[in-house]
C-alpha cells in the first residue's frame, strides 16, 4: 500500500477562531481506496477540518496538505477542491432552499465551467435521468425548500457522487476523495443501507471516502480505518476491524462511558394530554393520550405520517380536524398556531433545526431565551444582564460548548446547536413537549445526556412525545411506542415490548397491514 502516495495527507493542521482552538496540529492521511471514518464529539473539529479542505476556512500558518502526493499550498482558492478531485456533502448539506432541485444539482458545474448556452429543459431531463439511475424520483423543478429532509440529504449526496464520478472517470491515475459529513442523520434505514452500498462501489473506483458519523454501528460497518478527534487534537488512527466499540468510545470521550440506567415509570399516572380525531393531509383519525410523566414514542416507516403529528399539534401545519385537550382546556387543532400552542404549554423541537429552529445570525443567548422573553421584561425594556446570566447557566446545564451566550448560534458545531435548542424549549417547562429526532447529529455522550434530560423533563411532570426513526433511541427513552402506518395509529408497544427489535419489526408489519387494528393509543392495549 505505502508505495502509492495517500489521496490526502494533512500535516500540522491547526485552526483557531479567535480564542477557540478548533484544530490543533492535526495529521490525517487517507489512503487510496479506503473508507476513512472521522470521529469525535460535538465541537471536536470534524466539520472545521472538512471546511478547510473545501477552501471555506483558511487554516493557521504551518498547516500542510498533499493530494495524491503533490503538495498543495493554503489558502485554497474557491473551487480548488474540485480540481483536486474532492467533492463534499456538508453537514448542513450546502443547498439553497429557495432555488430549484436542478439548479442545486448543477451548482458545481456552473461554478467550474463557463457555459454560455444553458438549456434548462435539457438539464432537467438529465437531472431526472441521474435521479432515476439512483432509484430516486426527485422532481428537478421542485424547490429544495419543499423537499423532505431525507430527499434534501439524498440530493446533496447525489450531487457529490456525480462530481466524484465525473472526476474519476476522466483522469489518469489520480484518486478522488468523497467527503461525507454526517450524511446519514436525515436518512431512514433503507436509504442508509443504499448509501453504504454506494460508498462501497465508489471506493472501488479510484476514489477514497472520508466519512463522519456519531453512529458507531455505522462506522464499524462501513469504514476501514478511523481517526478520532478530541478537542481539536488527533487521539489516534486505528484500523476499524481491530478496535472494539469500547476502545473507540474511550478514544472519543477520553474515558469510559457508563451506560446510564434510565429509570422509567412503566405505568403512567399523571394527568393526561390527549389528541383526538386528528385528521390532516398525512393523518387519518389519529387519537393519542399521553400522560404527564411519561415519554411516548411515535414511529413508523417514512411517509407513514407519524413525523407530521407534532407539527399538527403545534400548529405549524394545518389540520383538517382534531382537538387537543391539555391542562383542562380544549383547543381546536384547525385553528392552532405556534403562538397559541406555546400559550397552551406545548413546545416543539423540530428536526429541521437549520430552517425551523433558530436564527443563525443572532447570539446564542438571544436564541435560547426567546421563548422566555416575558420573564425578562422590566419597567425599562429587557433585563439583559439577567438574561445573559440565565442563558449562561442554561447552556452549562445542557453542556453546550462553548457555553458563551454571546457567540452566534451559527458558529456552534451541529450537535451543540441541537443541545442549545433543547435547552431553549425545556426551560419553559412545557406541559407537552414534542421532540422530533432530538438526537440527530449529537455525539454519543450528548445523546445520553439528551435521553436523561428527556426523562427528567417527564419526571418534572411534562408529557413528552418523541418522534423518531431511531429505534435504539425509542427503546432507550420511551415508556410506550406507537407505530404508524398510512397516517393511522397501527400498533402500540408497551412494557417489555419496547425494544429495538420489536419496534423495527412492527414498523414493517404495520406498513404492510396498516388497517389491521385501529385502537385508541391511550387505552391499555
Amino acid at each position, binding site marked *: 500500500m505505502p508505495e502509492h502516495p495517500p489521496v490526502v495527507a494533512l500535516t500540522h493542521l491547526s485552526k483557531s477562531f479567535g480564542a477557540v482552538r478548533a484544530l490543533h496540529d492535526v495529521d490525517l492521511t487517507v489512503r487510496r481506496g479506503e473508507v476513512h471514518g472521522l470521529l469525535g464529539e460535538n465541537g471536536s473539529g470534524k466539520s472545521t477540518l472538512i471546511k478547510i479542505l473545501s477552501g471555506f476556512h483558511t487554516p493557521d500558518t504551518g498547516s500542510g496538505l498533499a493530494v495524491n502526493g503533490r503538495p498543495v499550498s493554503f489558502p485554497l482558492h474557491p473551487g480548488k477542491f474540485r480540481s483536486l478531485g474532492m467533492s463534499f456533502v456538508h453537514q448542513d448539506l450546502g443547498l439553497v432552499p429557495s*432555488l430549484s432541485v436542478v*439548479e442545486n444539482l448543477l451548482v*458545481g458545474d456552473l461554478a467550474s465551467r463557463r457555459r454560455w448556452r444553458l438549456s434548462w429543459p435539457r438539464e432537467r431531463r438529465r437531472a431526472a435521468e441521474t435521479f432515476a439511475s439512483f432509484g430516486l424520483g426527485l422532481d428537478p423543478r421542485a424547490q429544495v*425548500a419543499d423537499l423532505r429532509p431525507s430527499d434534501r440529504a439524498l440530493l446533496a449526496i447525489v450531487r457529490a457522487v456525480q462530481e466524484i464520478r465525473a472526476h474519476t472517470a476522466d483522469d489518469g491515475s489520480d484518486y478522488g476523495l468523497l467527503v461525507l459529513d454526517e450524511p446519514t442523520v436525515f436518512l431512514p434505514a433503507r436509504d442508509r443501507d443504499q448509501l453504504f452500498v454506494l460508498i462501497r462501489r465508489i471506493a472501488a473506483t479510484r476514489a477514497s471516502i472520508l466519512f463522519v458519523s456519531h453512529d458507531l454501528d455505522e462506522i464499524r460497518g462501513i469504514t476501514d480505518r478511523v481517526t478520532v478527534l478530541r478537542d481539536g487534537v488527533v487521539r489516534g488512527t486505528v484500523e476499524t476491524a481491530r478496535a472494539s466499540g469500547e476502545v473507540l468510545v474511550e478514544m472519543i470521550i477520553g474515558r469510559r462511558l457508563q451506560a446510564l440506567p434510565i429509570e422509567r415509570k412503566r405505568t403512567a399516572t399523571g394527568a393526561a394530554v390527549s389528541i383526538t380525531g386528528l385528521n390532516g393531509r398525512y393523518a387519518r383519525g389519529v387519537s393519542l393520550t399521553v400522560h404527564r410523566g411519561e415519554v411516548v414514542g411515535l414511529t413508523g416507516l417514512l411517509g407513514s405520517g407519524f413525523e407530521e403529528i407534532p407539527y399538527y399539534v403545534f400548529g405549524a401545519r394545518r389540520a383538517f380536524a382534531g382537538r387537543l385537550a391539555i391542562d383542562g382546556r380544549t383547543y381546536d387543532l384547525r385553528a392552532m398556531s405556534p403562538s397559541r400552542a406555546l400559550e397552551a404549554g406545548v413546545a416543539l423541537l423540530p428536526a429541521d433545526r437549520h430552517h425551523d429552529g433558530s436564527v443563525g445570525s443572532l447570539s446564542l443567548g438571544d436564541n435560547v431565551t426567546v421563548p422566555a422573553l416575558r420573564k425578562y421584561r422590566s419597567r425599562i425594556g429587557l433585563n439583559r444582564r439577567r438574561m445573559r446570566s440565565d442563558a449562561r447557566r442554561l447552556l452549562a446545564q445542557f453542556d453546550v460548548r462553548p457555553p458563551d451566550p454571546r457567540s452566534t448560534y451559527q458558529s456552534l458545531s451541529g450537535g451543540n446547536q441541537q443541545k442549545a435548542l433543547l435547552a431553549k424549549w425545556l426551560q419553559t417547562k412545557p406541559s407537552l413537549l414534542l421532540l422530533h429526532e432530538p438526537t440527530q447529529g449529537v455525539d454519543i455522550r450528548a445523546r445520553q445526556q439528551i435521553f436523561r434530560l428527556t426523562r427528567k423533563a417527564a419526571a418534572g411532570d411534562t408529557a413528552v412525545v418523541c418522534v423518531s426513526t431511531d429505534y435504539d433511541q425509542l427503546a432507550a427513552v420511551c415508556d410506550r411506542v406507537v407505530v404508524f402506518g398510512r397516517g393511522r395509529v397501527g400498533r402500540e408497544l408497551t412494557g417489555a415490548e419496547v425494544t429495538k427489535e420489536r419496534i423495527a419489526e412492527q414498523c414493517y408489519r404495520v406498513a404492510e397491514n396498516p388497517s389491521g387494528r385501529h385502537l385508541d393509543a391511550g387505552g391499555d392495549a
Partner: protein
Amino acid sequence: MSVGEFVERFALVGAWIAVIAVFSVLKPDTFATSSNFAAILGSQAVLVVLTCALLIPLTAGDYDLSITGVLTLSQMMIGILNTRNGISVYVCIVAALLTGALVGLINGAFVVIFGIDSFIVTLGTGTFLGGVVLWISNSETFAGISSQLTGPVVVERFLGVPLAFYYGLALVIVLWYFLEYTSLGRQLLFVGRSRRVARLSGLRVGRLRWGALVASGVIAAAAGVLYAGITGAADPVSGAGFLLPAFAAAFLGATSIVPGRFNPWGSFIAVYFLVTGITGLALFGIQSWLQDMFYGGALVLAVTFSQIARRREEHVSGVREN
C-alpha cells in the same frame, strides 16, 4: 404550469393591458394615439436601462444606491465635455462609461475587501457623486449636446418610436439571456441567495459581487448617456429622481414573469406599467406630484407582493445567510 402560477406570472402584464384599455376608452383621442404610445415608449428608456443596472447587484444580493449618482455624473460629463470643451461625443461616452466602471470598482472594493454593507457604501458614494456633479457643473445646466448623440437616440425612429426604446429593449434581452442561460448569471443568483452555500460550492463570491457592482456602474453610466441624448442637455439634479422608480420597477418586476426572482422582463413590464398609469392620469390634468405618489405606493405594494411570492419560494424567512 398551473393556473395559479400562470396568473401570478402574467398578472402584471394583464394589469398593464387593462390600464391601457381603460385609458384608451376614456381618452380615445389623446391617450390612444400612436404619438402618445411612441412618447411613452421612448421616454422611459433611461429608466429601463437604469433598472437593468440595478438588477445585477440585486441578484447577487447587494444594493446599489449609487446608480443615480453615476447616471447624473455620466450625463454631466457628456454635457460639459461636449458643449463646453467641444470634445467628440464618442470620446465623452467612453469616458463616461469608464467613470461608471471606476465607481463600481470603488464600491466593490469597500464591499468586498472591507466587508462593509453595500447599502451603506453605495448610499455614501451616490451622495458623494451628487456633490461632485454640483461642483463640476457649478449647479448649471448644459444644453446643446451634439446631434451626433441626440440623433441616434431620440431623433431617429423605427416604427415611429425613438431608437432609445430599442436600446433599452436590447439591453433587457441581453441581460435576460445572461441571467437565465449562462453559468455566470446563475452564479450571481447563488451568491445572492446564500453566500455561504456559494462559497462552499466553490464560487468566487467576492469577485462575483465586485463584478456585479462594476457592471451596474457601467450600465448606470450608459443610462446617463441615454439621458443626455434624450434631453439634449445635462442638468445636475433631475437624475436623482430615477432612484425610487428604478427600485420600484426592480421589485415590482420580481413579482412577475419569474416570480420571486429579480428579472429583466418583469422589470421592463413594470416600468411601462407604471409610466402608462402616470401618463394616463396626467391626461386628466392630474398634477405631477401624482407621479411621486404613484411610484412610492407602487414600491411598497411591489415589495409586499414580491415578499409574498418570495415567501412561497423560501418558506421561511432568514434563509438568505451570509
